[in-house]
């Protein structure tokens, strides 16, 4: 399982990719594999402001219903509307077209609480 560089991860298996003030958030390859076929995604409204580790949505698979949490505090600037009709994009391309939300990051120091790719790799191997 390859884990892209330059991403940060939570212990709940969300990833975040930060570019300037904006960031993209999704769930990891490992997470989608554990969940199995994803059948529904519930995402927040644009402009909603959420705290780090606050719940922002729900992912439902044939096996389980899981909440997804904000890796950082911020304002939702965009949600992946494609997932409404094609939730399977998360299974197919979790780091690409299966992204969940775009966030305006409030405080970059939030990232210090997260794992980098190497740390996350060790984390899932130890799980």
């Amino acid at each position, binding site marked *: 399982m390859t884990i892209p560089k330059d991403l940060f991860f939570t212990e709940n298996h969300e990833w975040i990719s930060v570019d300037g003030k904006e960031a993209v958030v999704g769930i990891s390859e490992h997470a989608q594999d554990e969940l199995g076929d994803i059948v*529904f995604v*519930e995402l927040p*409204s644009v402009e909603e402001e959420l705290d780090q580790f606050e719940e922002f949505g729900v992912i*439902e698979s044939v096996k389980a*219903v899981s*909440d997804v949490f904000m890796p950082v505090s911020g304002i939702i600037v965009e949600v992946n509307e494609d997932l*409404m009709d094609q939730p399977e994009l998360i299974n197919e391309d979790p780091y690409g077209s299966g992204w969940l939300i775009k966030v305006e990051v409030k405080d970059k120091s939030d990232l210090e609480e997260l794992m980098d790719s190497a740390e996350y790799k060790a984390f899932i191997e130890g799980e």
Partner: protein
Amino acid sequence: MDYVSNTEQERQQMLKEIGVEAIEDIFDSIPDEVRLNRELDVSEGMSELELKRHINKIADKNISLENYTSFLGGGAYDHYVPSIIDHLISRQEFYTAYTPYQAELSQGTLQVVYEYQSMISELTGMDVANASLLDGGSATAEAILMASRISRNKKVLISSALHPSYREVAKTYGKPKDLDFVEISIEDGVTNLEELEDNLDNDVAAIVVQYPNFYGSIENMEKIKQLKEEYKKALLIVVANPIALGLLTPPKEFGADIVTGEGQSLGNTINYGGPYLGYLACINDRKFIRQLPGRIAGATVDADGNRGYVLTLQTREQHIRREKATSNMCTNEALNAAISTIYMATMGKKGMKEVAEQSYKKAHYLADKIDELEDFEVVNSDNFFHEFWITTKLAAKKVLSNLKEEKILGGIDISRFEEEEGILISVTEKRTKEELDNLVRLLEAM
């Protein structure tokens, strides 16, 4: 398993087996100060014959609608119940079948629920209906919570012409969710739409109106539709009497997002105020369907391509989502929903329309006659379906008790809700011209 209580000997055996001396020892962990420490204050047992006499004596205090003429309404209506209903629902497959936990084993139950949902959808003009809820009040409350989840707003504009008990239930449900209820006053028996407009803003989760409203009047739905369209987030919840929908324009055409209400009038007898069923239907929007409370039966095909029925979207429900479920409602009123389904199927489109038309015509005939009387006035003028509100110079309580002596239940004394004065009179297709004329004659003589 036989339902036979155990003997003293068996009890001793069981106590010995688990190593205690007396039954009280099992409850050792309960502190002494919270124990009753005396026998329950319940009288000695009775023989079967004694019990039968006792129960009959209590039952004789009841008034039967077989012997009385009823003009009572306010959410529970005395419509004719075709005899086929009792015959069909007495079948044990219906009578004992709770929506089962291994739901798909009971294809018949699920099929009835599916048919029920389809008929409710057609009647309300909505796209999706759930498998029913407990009653009109709780269904209204669930609709409001649903609207709050969808809009992510807390403010609810609720018409004072919505049934007072429904409002109370809604407020109880809304309290832990911090919902902010704003009651819109009434004017001449309908919701004050200027006041509604003044309170509308983008923080509103829902506008809740009843159709026809508690006082029987039909709200200006066209105007409410216009008001609602200016504020996109506010959902329109219409609490409708399903019998009235046999005649009135379906709420969907006035932009209703959720239609809900009491389903008793669809073939259920009055009983003693229950069990009834609440129905709830919404538009075909993914966000709405995910937030729909309660069970939903769906149609699908099995591996061989045969049609089958399943409980669908269960991940919204409490047994899977626990505290994050869309609702604490994990059940339905399956038997009452079956009754309503059989009723709608028996009556058909034409029959439903006829019940509505006859109720309407008879109610209007009666209202016109009462309005001519010196001491009585109809508040709704002619804007009502089959229920109307009269005010009287006489004491309403006295009027009703006089009628009761003549074996007539003349209506609801609405002062009991401590908001308005007068009597609410409901007329169904069951009332004959003689009964209506008799009521007028008695009122005139008072």
